[in-house]
Structures are given as structure tokens and as C-alpha cells.
């Protein structure tokens, strides 16, 4: 019997009898059906097909949300995988208000937290601006800061204005605050912060050290000893 060039489908010979035509067409159709299905193995919306040989394909079932396409360890076939690339994700934008503002229920899906804090003013008087992880105040911070004689320097939460009080009406201030390994429930947490405030006087502050807690950090409390917070913004990022 004759066959086609590429897929070897069986076709009638020139000398074949007409009476065998129906059977020959049925055989050819069946072969075509098998070949077409092999070239289109997908079964579900979102599936992908890929070649396993020059004329053979396989089905790759669709991945899950957020997965990326990559090659397997043998570099022989594609597969879906969770993205391993790093980066920062904005988790929340918080407007400071009240005697304190707490950012709560912080996602535990990142390696570290990065906070940008700016535009902080308060209602009553110049004061000390600070952040308390997990709202813990005493005995929670150890490290080097720009002005060790400042308020509760050696044993308290992170004093973001440790070079002097924040002028309550000057909103040009800005700080960066970072906590590493914040989800750990077994290790202490390295932290660092730095910032500048009070406009023309350009007071600056910094701190390096750690939180003396093995508890995972799930919330951050911001407050100013000068009175209720009037304005201020906290951008919270998760970092992978």
C-alpha cells in the first residue's frame, strides 16, 4: 500500500479496486485523526503543547496563579514553577493618626520588611518619634544609634528621632526602617534605620542593632511623645 510522505498515512494504490475505496478512506481518516490529536494534545483551557520529538507533542497542564514557565532540571521539557526572583512588594500605605497608629496583621511571606516613613507632624508639641515592633516598648532594642543620650535609647523601641525632637509642624522629614528575618520565631531580628528631619536644621539620625525578641514581628506601632499624630505616611514593603 502507498503511504504519505510525512506521516505515513496509508492510501490506496493506483491499482486498488474501487470497491475497497470506503475502507481505504476510513483507514486514512483514522490515521489523520490520530496524527492531529498527537499534534494537539491539550485537553483543558490554559494547557500548553510542546514538542517531545520532531513530529510528536505532549501536553503541559496549565500552571497556578503566579507561576512562571521554566525548563526542567534536565533541560528537556518546559514546566511551571513558582517564581524565585527577588523584589519588593508594597504591602500597605498607612496614614498616621491618633495617639498611636498600629500597622497590624503583617504578611509573613517575605524575608524582610522595608518601611519608608515621611511627612510626620503632630498636634501638640515637638516630640520623640518612635516605632515599636509588636507594640513592645521596654528591653526590645539593642544597638548603636546616632545620639545615645536620647529618649530610652538603650532599652526601648527604635527612636527614629534620636538626634532631637521632631519639630511638630515641619513635614519635610523622612526615614527608612528595615527589619530582617522578621518572620522567625527562633532568632533575634537585625534592624537598621536612618533619616533626616527638621528642615533647615537638617537633624539626622541612624540606628543599627537588633530587636531582642525571638517572636515573629506581626505589627508595628508608631507614636510621638509630643502628642497626637497629625500627618504622616508609612509605606510598608515586603522584600524577598
Amino acid at each position, binding site marked *: 500500500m502507498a503511504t504519505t510522505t510525512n506521516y505515513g498515512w496509508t492510501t490506496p494504490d493506483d491499482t486498488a479496486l474501487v470497491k475497497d475505496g470506503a475502507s481505504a478512506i476510513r483507514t486514512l481518516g483514522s490515521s489523520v485523526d490520530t496524527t492531529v490529536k498527537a499534534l494537539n494534545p491539550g485537553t483543558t483551557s490554559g494547557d500548553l503543547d510542546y514538542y517531545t520529538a520532531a513530529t510528536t507533542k505532549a501536553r503541559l497542564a496549565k500552571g497556578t496563579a503566579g507561576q512562571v514557565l521554566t525548563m526542567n532540571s534536565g533541560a528537556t521539557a518546559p514546566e511551571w514553577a513558582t517564581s524565585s526572583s527577588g523584589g519588593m512588594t508594597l504591602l*500597605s500605605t498607612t496614614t498616621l*493618626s491618633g*495617639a*498611636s497608629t498600629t*500597622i497590624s496583621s503583617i*504578611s509573613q511571606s517575605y524575608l524582610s520588611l522595608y518601611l519608608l516613613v515621611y511627612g510626620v507632624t503632630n498636634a501638640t508639641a515637638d516630640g520623640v518619634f518612635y516605632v515599636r515592633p509588636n507594640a513592645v*516598648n521596654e528591653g526590645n532594642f539593642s544597638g548603636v544609634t546616632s545620639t545615645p543620650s536620647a*529618649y530610652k535609647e538603650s532599652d526601648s523601641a527604635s527612636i527614629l528621632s534620636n538626634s532631637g525632637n521632631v519639630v511638630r509642624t515641619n513635614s519635610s522629614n523622612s526615614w527608612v526602617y528595615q527589619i530582617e528575618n522578621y518572620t522567625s520565631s527562633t532568632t533575634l531580628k537585625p534592624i537598621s534605620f536612618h533619616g533626616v528631619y527638621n528642615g533647615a536644621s537638617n537633624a539626622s539620625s541612624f540606628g543599627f542593632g537588633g530587636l531582642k525578641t525571638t517572636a515573629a514581628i506581626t505589627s508595628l506601632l508608631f507614636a510621638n511623645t509630643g502628642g497626637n499624630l497629625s500627618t504622616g505616611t508609612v509605606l*510598608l514593603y515586603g522584600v524577598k
Partner: protein
Amino acid sequence: MAKTSRPMVRIHNTETDEVIDREMNDAEFAQYEADKVAQAAADAAKAKGEADKTALLVRLGLTEDELKTILG
């Protein structure tokens, strides 16, 4: 009109993005009062340190600039 007896606090739940402004609860208010006492003590200690320093300089007959020069 309802009277606010305690300071207000803001809670921002980052999981739900819900923001709640409410009065301090008992624990928060106790901490708030303790913070005020601690701040007053810190301010007093700082003021006393400044006063002691000034008094010592007077006894020594030095100005602050002269002291800085000595400590150079």
C-alpha cells in the same frame, strides 16, 4: 455629644486593608500613661544633666566653648 475620655488610636489591618480609629483600650491606656511618666523622667534627667553641667562650668570658670576646646 459623646465625650472622648481616652486618646484615639488608629489600627490599619494590612491583611484586610481595614482602618479603625478607636479609643485606647485598658492595656494601651496603661502603656500610654507609663510612657508619659517615663518621658517626664527622661526630660527631667536631661534637664538636670544640663543644669549640673552649667553649674560645674561656672564653678570651674569656663565657658562651654572653652570646654570644647579643652576636650578638642
